């Protein structure tokens, strides 16, 4: 359940942006989560609900944008989609791939009122 730790970090970041402003509540938090990142969406939502209880972000919508996994093949040098780390290159079948996208774990924005 490292998602709970991640949600605590998320709340810290939210709080840094709340300090000094007079917001009534946080309506939405938008995250970018890479398809290859070691994060489970439902665990993240569960953790978010728990850590935001009693804060300005309680009840906020957690909008998760999934970023597709992508890699460049070290054998055929093509950019290919990569759903799992254990997948072979879709083009040539080799396993030597350098991930170029899909490991993101970022808070993009939040909507406040």
């Amino acid at each position: 359940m490292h998602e709970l730790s991640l949600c605590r970090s998320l709340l810290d970041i939210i709080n840094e942006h709340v300090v000094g402003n007079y917001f009534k509540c946080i309506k939405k938090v938008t995250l970018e989560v890479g398809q290859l990142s070691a994060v489970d969406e439902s665990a993240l939502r569960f953790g978010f609900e728990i850590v935001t209880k009693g804060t300005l972000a309680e009840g906020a919508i957690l909008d998760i944008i999934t970023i597709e996994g992508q890699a460049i093949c070290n054998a055929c040098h093509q950019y290919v989609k990569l759903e799992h780390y254990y997948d072979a290159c879709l083009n040539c079948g080799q396993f030597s791939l350098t991930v170029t996208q899909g490991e993101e774990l970022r808070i993009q924005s939040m909507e406040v009122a």
Partner: protein
Amino acid sequence: MMCGICGCSDDSTTHHEHRMAKTMHQHENHNVIQIEQDLLAKNNQYARENRDYFLKEKITAINLMSSPGSGKTTLLARTFTDRQQDMDMTVIVGDQQTDQDAQKLQSAGLHAVQINTGKVCHLDAHMVGHSIEHVSHQHQGILFIENVGNLVCPALFDLGEAFRVVLLSVTEGDNKPLKYPDMFRASDLMLLTKIDLLPYVEFNTNKAIEYAQRINPSIHALSLSATTSVGLKEWYLWLKNASKKITHVH
């Protein structure tokens, strides 16, 4: 009209202001604040501080990870017993509860500091930073950071280590690298442990290595048993070379 600061050209924007380098858009009665920050940013900052400290002191920090019971503590105790003459070793050991591992290592003669994470399933760079304060000064030594037994969560948290080592015991099954790819992807070395039990379990060593290299083509692999000593020589050689890489950095 496009905003010169953030490039926003949303026509529905009724009001628009930039405060303290933060971008804010007011859409009727709510604002969107662009944050664009990595969730692990704070951990990574602490990890950088740890790494700077280790480099300054020429300490070879090794993050040891595995599922519970794969033999991390046993291997460390054995390593110390065999090589205390020519290697200076210290251990930070993380568990959710008890200091049994630290005690076990201390009774082998090692300087070991226990971190109890409570409910947390991994070590983070902040916890490690604090425990370094309790480690006696060990310029140019090896610092083992024995992570909480867990094949998932610790992979995500950089502790500032120079090397990551993942242990996989032969009783766990050879397909673990495919099932828990993040751990193997993030590691420099995979140690297949308890190989003295190979006759009694269905574990294909070559398969395990092939799977791990599928996830991480540059991962090295060694097989050993801390009970029978098979393969320990190669592990000690790897440690020696790892340490050399750090102490010879100018």
